[in-house]
């Protein structure tokens, strides 16, 4: 394109420019040619430079740190895969993996199913569309630590509303922080509450792109609402579903703020007195920034990274294969 433009620039310049300027046009021309050629690189450079220094390099260097006995005083001996050997035999690590996966399932599956239902409800002829959409999106606007604080109170053993409601149907008060399942449920509720509406809007956008005559044809063929939903709507918004599944998985594997705030008090970073809701991110943080064991913390971080990658690929394959 540049070669196409330059001759025209050259021919259009002389009539406009005064004679004394003429010797300069050659130089100007060359400058502008250089400018056109190199400015795209200059424009994209800030991203790549800053990302390389503060994003990519730390991530790669994590692997290097994890091969060392490395603490707050600096790099110690190269220990090869020792940190990983310890890690594989570390029950606290596996416990945190278990917790993270448990909460991931409890948070992602209901969230996406509810989002699907919500989106198909919103995908009708409705009054007050903007009001409804904004209402659905309200949770995402709540500051994340605030979500943790509000739900910690709602799920409190003594003062909480959930136990109050359970009392109405004669269920004994649950100590939500005490056990794995109960604490996972409480934390997953925060995530579900916060993200369902966002995912619903993504699905809604995809649903609105489905041609209406598909549904008309199905109605003529006698397919009911629910049948239409599963055989027309869901297959047609597959890309959106794949997108949300992968995004929720990546976010779920890094779950940190909600369980930390839920923990309250001195057991916060260990996820309860028995580590019943400590996630892998919390474990990494505990090792690196509480115990100052950078080498071991880096091994944890690198394992999380691998886990996320593996889960991402598995997700992709499953969602791709199912029809």
């Amino acid at each position, binding site marked *: 394109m540049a070669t196409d433009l330059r001759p025209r620039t050259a021919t259009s310049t002389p009539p406009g420019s005064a004679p004394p300027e003429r010797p300069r046009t050659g130089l100007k021309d060359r400058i502008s040619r250089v400018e056109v050629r190199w400015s795209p690189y200059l424009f994209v450079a800030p991203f790549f430079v800053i990302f390389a220094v503060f994003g990519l390099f730390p991530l790669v260097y*994590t692997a290097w740190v994890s091969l060392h006995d490395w603490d707050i005083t600096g790099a110690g001996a190269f220990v090869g895969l020792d940190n990983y050997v310890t890690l594989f035999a570390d029950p606290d690590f596996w416990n945190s993996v278990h917790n993270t996966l448990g909460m991931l399932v409890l948070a992602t599956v209901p969230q996406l199913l509810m989002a699907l239902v919500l989106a198909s409800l919103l995908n009708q002829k409705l009054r007050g569309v903007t009001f409804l959409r*904004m209402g*659905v999106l309200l949770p995402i606007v709540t500051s994340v630590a605030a979500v943790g*604080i509000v739900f910690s109170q*709602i799920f409190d053993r003594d003062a909480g509303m959930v136990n109050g409601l359970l009392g109405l149907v004669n269920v004994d008060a649950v100590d939500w922080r005490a056990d794995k399942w109960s604490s996972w449920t409480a934390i997953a509720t925060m995530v579900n509450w916060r993200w369902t509406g966002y995912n619903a809007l993504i699905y809604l*956008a995809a649903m609105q792109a489905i041609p209406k005559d598909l549904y008309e044809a199905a109605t003529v063929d006698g397919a009911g609402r629910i049948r239409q939903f599963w055989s027309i709507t869901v297959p047609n918004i597959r890309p959106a579903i794949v997108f949300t599944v992968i995004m929720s998985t990546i976010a779920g594997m890094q779950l940190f703020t909600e369980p930390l705030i839920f923990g309250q008090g001195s057991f916060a970073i260990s996820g309860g007195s028995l580590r019943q809701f400590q996630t892998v991110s919390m474990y990494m943080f505990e090792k*690196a920034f509480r115990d100052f064991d950078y080498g071991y913390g880096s091994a944890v971080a690198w394992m999380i990274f691998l886990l996320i990658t593996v889960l991402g690929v598995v997700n992709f394959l499953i969602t791709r294969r199912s029809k």
Partner: protein
Amino acid sequence: MRKTQPLLYATLLVGIALSAFPLYWLFVVATRSNDVVGDWPPPLAPGPNLWDNLGRLFGAEDANFLLGMWNSLLTSAVVTVSVVFFSSLAGFAFAKLKFRGRNALLLVILATMMIPVQMGIIPLYMIMVELGWQNRMEAIVVPALVSAFGVFLMRQYAEQAVPDELIEAARIDGCSTFRIFWTIVLPALRPGAAVLALTTFMGTWNEFLWPLAVLEADNPTVQFSLSQLSTTYYTDYTLMFTGALVATVPLLLVFIAFGRQIIGGIMEGAVKA
């Protein structure tokens, strides 16, 4: 179809009530005193204690709430301006300029969107120690100055929002590439940039893991202050709720003012994804 409509509205309204209730509860408790919070049935109307609670919040030791708010406003604003600027610049280059290696570089950006950068925080912390930026806002701002998601979003937007003829015409008039960006492209990108600005602001405001690692309690961001409250004052619900409310208000204001654009942005992004 007609008959199902009331049921449809009822279901949707219940859904919206559920999504709004925790926020309303946040407000109610922040206006109450501690002795009624655990009551059953719970107090569902606002009370008179908001000012009192605010006073206690900003006076709470260890939390440094006012400083936390200021730090968060400052870092979120700087990061937002920077991300929008650099993303528009790079997005424009990827969408409208031809250069060798363009597609390969774009692929790199797409790939980095999927990388959980958070996992690199240990070496990132070491870098900050080297630079002397621990417990300083530079540590929060500088790594966040650019965003792969932002570049991608602005590229998508620039592709359809800026006509090629306009750029060519400006070139013929002798405009430099940056001048074209500044005077022609940037104004055309404004709606897309607004969405990016809002999501970036919210994202930075909600950042927690990294501030907790690199900052100290005497120079926190607002989420850090909130976590301090929930560690130190975890029995004082009205205090924590008031903090949570104050930390949410800026986001709510942004949402009320620009909710429509945010929704449009999410839905447009979804169609393309």
